[in-house]
Each structure stands twice: as C-alpha cells, then as structure tokens.
C-alpha cells in the first residue's frame, strides 16, 4: 500500500515535469536550441500569478484571472525573449544561442529578485486542497488535476500538430527548416508560435506547482527546468509522448528514491543515473527516432 502511495505522488511530480518537458521538447525540436531559460519562464508565470492574486479580490475569480494572466505574461515573455535574444542569432552557432539563453536565465532571475525581493512567497489562494480515499490509499485532488491536465494537453497538442495547418508546418520546420522555407512556410512565425506554446505550458506548470503548495521564489523554475530537460531527453527529444513518459518516469524514480531513507540523499544522483543508463541502452531516448546520418 505504501508503495502505491509513493507511486501516486511520483505520478503527480512526474506529470508536472512532463508539462515543462513538452514545452522543452517542442522548442528544441523546432528551434533546435537548448532553451536554458525555459525554467525561468515558469518563475515569471509564478510572479504573474502572485501579482494578479494581490489585485483581484474574489477568491475564485482571482484563481482564474491568475492563470490567465500567467499564460498571457509567459507567452509575451517567451515570444519577446525569442524575438530579442534568440532571433538575431538565427543562423549563428547553436552554442551562441545557448549562451544567450543562459544570459536570459540570469537576467530573469535577478530582475525577479530586484522587483519582488529575496523572500519566497506562499500563494495559498492557488492551492488545491483535499483528497479522495481509495480504500486506504489517499489521492490528493491536486495530483489528479495535474495528471488530467497533462494528459489533456498532450492529446490536444498531438492532435494540433497532426491535423492543424500550423501544426503540420511545425513538423515540417523541425524536419528541415530550409526545405520548409522553400515550401512557403513562414518559419519565423512558426518558431514564434512554438515559443508561445512552450511558454504557455510553462505558465500552466507554474500554476500546478503552486497549486501543490510550492513557495514562490526566483529560483522556482531553475531545477524543475533542468529536470524537465532530462525528462525530455529520456523520452527522446522532439517526441511529445516521449516527454510525458520521461517526465512521469523521472517523477516516479524521484519519489521512490525519497521513500528509501538510505537512498534519499542520493536522489539527484539516482535521477541523473537513470538518464545515463537509458541513453546507453537507447541513445535517442525511449521514444526518440534514431536518425541515420546520410552522407
């Protein structure tokens, strides 16, 4: 029974990683860049919710407004970061973009401390309390909500990519940007849309983290961002179901590791160790397509 409850909290943690990882994997697949600042967009979303909650009086309206505001602010932030920091570097070495992303990450974190101070904040207004009992097994509502949101988002995004015109353009851009351009696809617009989607997902991840009771600080997204990156790679970069699978796997491993006291201090090592083992067995990740390089 104990094992089951550990598994369920792992699912909850993993689902949050999964949402961030979906954003990571989409941006990577299409812009071909490691967006180190992705985690910090989550933090921006958190502060957007903090401000909204302070402004809106009615509790239920405030939550709705906060989510909406977070999504808007994150999308705006994601797109403008892309526009001003990454787009000028299109065509330059991918490493240059990586360094800029690191710079953006520092920038957002220090701006957050300058504006909101160093003390972390509890946003209890966003918290989802309560639980259901399945026999003796306790499942928190927030875990169910997180899982549901993740599944819905994954399905919706998969359908979007498969059937909408924009989605198919995204696939084309990720396969071959130059060929897509020749086909008349506005690659710049597609990349901007991808950043917008990724950032919106980051905002939702921010909501889910705060709904679980995480305290808000300027480092809120840093480590989850790295974990999500790890999850995306475990699942195979570029694959949406892979990102979800990777996220869930990482969450469950983390949870299991914490539940064993002797292993708990090594949890970081265990999580990253799993990644290495998986990549040794499947170099392109669990669901990633191994690409043969043609001469």
């Amino acid at each position, binding site marked *: 029974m104990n094992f089951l409850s550990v598994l369920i909290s792992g699912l909850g943690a993993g689902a949050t990683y999964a949402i961030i990882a979906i954003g990571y994997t989409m941006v990577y697949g299409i812009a071909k860049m490691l967006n180190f600042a992705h985690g910090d967009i989550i933090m921006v979303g958190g502060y957007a919710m903090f401000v909204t909650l302070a402004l809106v009086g009615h509790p239920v309206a405030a939550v709705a407004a906060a989510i909406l505001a977070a999504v808007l602010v994150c999308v705006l932030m994601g797109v403008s970061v892309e526009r001003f920091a990454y787009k000028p570097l299109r065509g*330059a070495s991918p*490493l*240059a973009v990586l360094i800029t992303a690191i710079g953006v990450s520092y920038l957002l974190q*220090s701006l957050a401390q300058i504006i909101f101070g160093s003390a972390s904040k509890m946003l209890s207004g966003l918290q989802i309390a309560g639980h259901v009992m399945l026999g003796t097994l306790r499942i928190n509502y927030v875990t169910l909500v997180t899982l549901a949101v993740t599944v819905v988002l994954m399905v919706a995004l998969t359908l979007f990519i498969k059937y909408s015109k924009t989605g198919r353009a995204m696939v084309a851009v990720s396969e071959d940007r130059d060929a897509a351009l020749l086909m008349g696809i506005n690659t710049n617009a597609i990349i901007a849309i991808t950043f917008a989607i990724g950032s919106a997902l980051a905002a939702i991840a921010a909501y889910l983290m705060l709904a679980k009771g995480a305290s808000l600080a300027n480092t809120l997204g840093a480590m989850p961002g790295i974990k999500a*990156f*790890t999850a995306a790679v475990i699942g195979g970069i570029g694959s949406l179901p892979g990102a979800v699978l990777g996220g869930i796997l990482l969450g469950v491993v983390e949870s299991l590791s914490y539940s064993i006291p002797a292993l708990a*201090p090594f949890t*970081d*090592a265990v999580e990253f160790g799993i990644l290495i083992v998986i990549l040794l067995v499947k170099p392109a990740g669990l669901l990633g397509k191994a690409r043969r390089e043609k001469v």
Partner: protein
Amino acid sequence: MNAVLEFFKKPFLRKYTNYIVVALFTVIFAILSLTGGLKMGTQFLLEQIGIAVLLAVSLGMVVGFLGELSLGHAGFMCVGAYVGGKLSSLLVGAMGGNEDSIVALLLALLVGGLVAAVFGIIIGLPALRLRGDYLAIVTLAFGEIVRSVFMNMPERLFGGTTGLETPRFDRKYLFVFAFLLVLACLAVTQNLMRSKHGRAIVSIKDNEIAARATGIDVTKYKLFVFTISSFFAGIAGVLYSYSNVRLQSVNFDYNYSTEILVMVVLGGMGSINGSMIAAALITFLNVKLQTMLTGNLAVLQKLFYAIILILIVIYKNAPGLKGFREKYNLKALFDKLFKKKPVAEDMADGKEGDDAE
C-alpha cells in the same frame, strides 16, 4: 617601439607569442608578489584567473576542437579537487602540517589529474555513441552525480555537507604554480592541435563521416581529447582545492560548467588564446562586480553580467549585424582615434593572425 613589434612579427616568435606573454605575466607578478607589491585581493584574483584559464582551455579542446558539447566540466574538476584535496591533506598531515609543501602539491596535482582523466575515459565511452545535445545532457548528468555522491560520502572520508578541509597553499606562490600549469596546458594543447593529430581532431568536428572515410580513428581521437581535457580539469580542481580552505561539492554544479562554457564560446570556438583571454576577463569582471557592488547594490551583479553576456553574444554572432560589426568595431575605433599611429593597427593585426588556429 616599432622595432620591437617588428621583432615579434617574425614567424618563429609569433608562434610562441602566447607563451611569452603568459611567461612574462608570470614572472612580473611573481616578482611583485615576492617583494610584497601585490595586494591580497590581486593574489586571489590571479589564482582564480589561473584556474579559470585552465578550465577554459581544457573545455575548449572538447567544445572548440572536437565539436562536442560538454556541460559537465565542473564534474571532472570536482573529481580532481576531491581526490587531490584528500591526498594533499593526508600528505600534509603526514608531513607535520606544512601546507606549503611543494611535494604534496605536485603529487596531488598528478593524482587528481589522473583520476579525473580516468573519469574522462568513462564518460568519453558513451560519447562515442551519443551525438550533440544528448552528449551534453549526459555530461551534465555526470557532473550532478559526482557532486551528489561526494556530498553524501561518509563525513570522515570527504567531509559531507560541511566540506572537505584541504590545505591552503601560501597565496604568495599559489598563483605562480597556476600560471606555470597554464603554460604546461598551453604547450600540450597548442602542440597537439598543430600536429597531424590536431588536424585529425578538427576534421572530426567538420565532418565525422568524411573523417572516418579517410581512415581517421574517430573513436580513439574522441576518447583521447576527452581524457586530456578532463586531466586538465582535474588539475584545475586540485588548484581550486589548494586555493580554498574547504571544498563544498555543491559549488561544482551545472552552473559552474556553464560558466566555463561561456568563457569558451565568448573566446571564440577553437581559439586557445581566445579562451584564455575570455577566461581571464570574465573572472576579472565577476570579481570586480562582486567587490564593487556591495550592500544594497549586490542584486545588480547578475543583472549586469547577464546584460553584458547577451549583448556581446548577439553583437559578435548575429548574422544580421555583420555590416554593423564591420562598421563599428574596436579596430575601426582604434584606427579613428590613432589615425596618425599605424602601430595600433599593426598590433591588432599581429594578434589576430595568432588567434586563428
């Protein structure tokens, strides 16, 4: 003045300009330090610069020459620091507590470097299977694992969360050793890269399949570069352990690795001199920000750093700014300011030639 510059432009000497410059710096600062002409802060700064240069040059081999992205350089450094630091503290203990023992320092450097190199081989092996960003995440993971494992080793072994207490070498001399090691690292990397092996390595970066087709043993070379690179990272780690009283494994996180990567990229991929200069300047900048922005202004440090970083990367890399770059750069500025003195231009030219490898 002109005659001196002309002398340095001789092809034979130009090949060794960077050695001469580093050696000159070493001698000048060593003399200053011995005669008490250096402030404590400058000695610490020079130590940090030496360590940063070693890290940047060694990471530059993997990133700049081999073309593989590594985000775990601090991990190799961590291994070197802990192994070397433990060894030196044991040796110093056995030798009656003389923290400035050169024998202990040299032994620690050797062992720390070698153990780090072994880890380089261990990580280099998967590097043969993985490509690009997959390798990057594996190295990042390696760094985080090393950090976590050292922290959770028994306290009497590696100090646990309180950190491993290591000897603190006399600050008057430590940076001299660091600079000498920079020279050694320079000799190894530069000679390697100018040899036929170096050309083979660069050809792997340019086109692995073509390199393989021409009979280059890609596997061997990749492993070789990883090993050398982590050896010097380990050396830098031992120096770090000597420049700090206690090792905190938490400091060797991925942020440290990205910091080194920033130096390599800003210095220009595949340029040893670029890496060295960027490492020195970034370390200098960070220390200046740290010591000048105090009290309520401290929050501005990272902000300034981030803005400088973003602007420089965009300025020097953005394809759209090519025309802008050609019009507004420091060389043009120099020409404008010192129109009557063509010397400045000569100097810039002279170094430029050496920059490219």
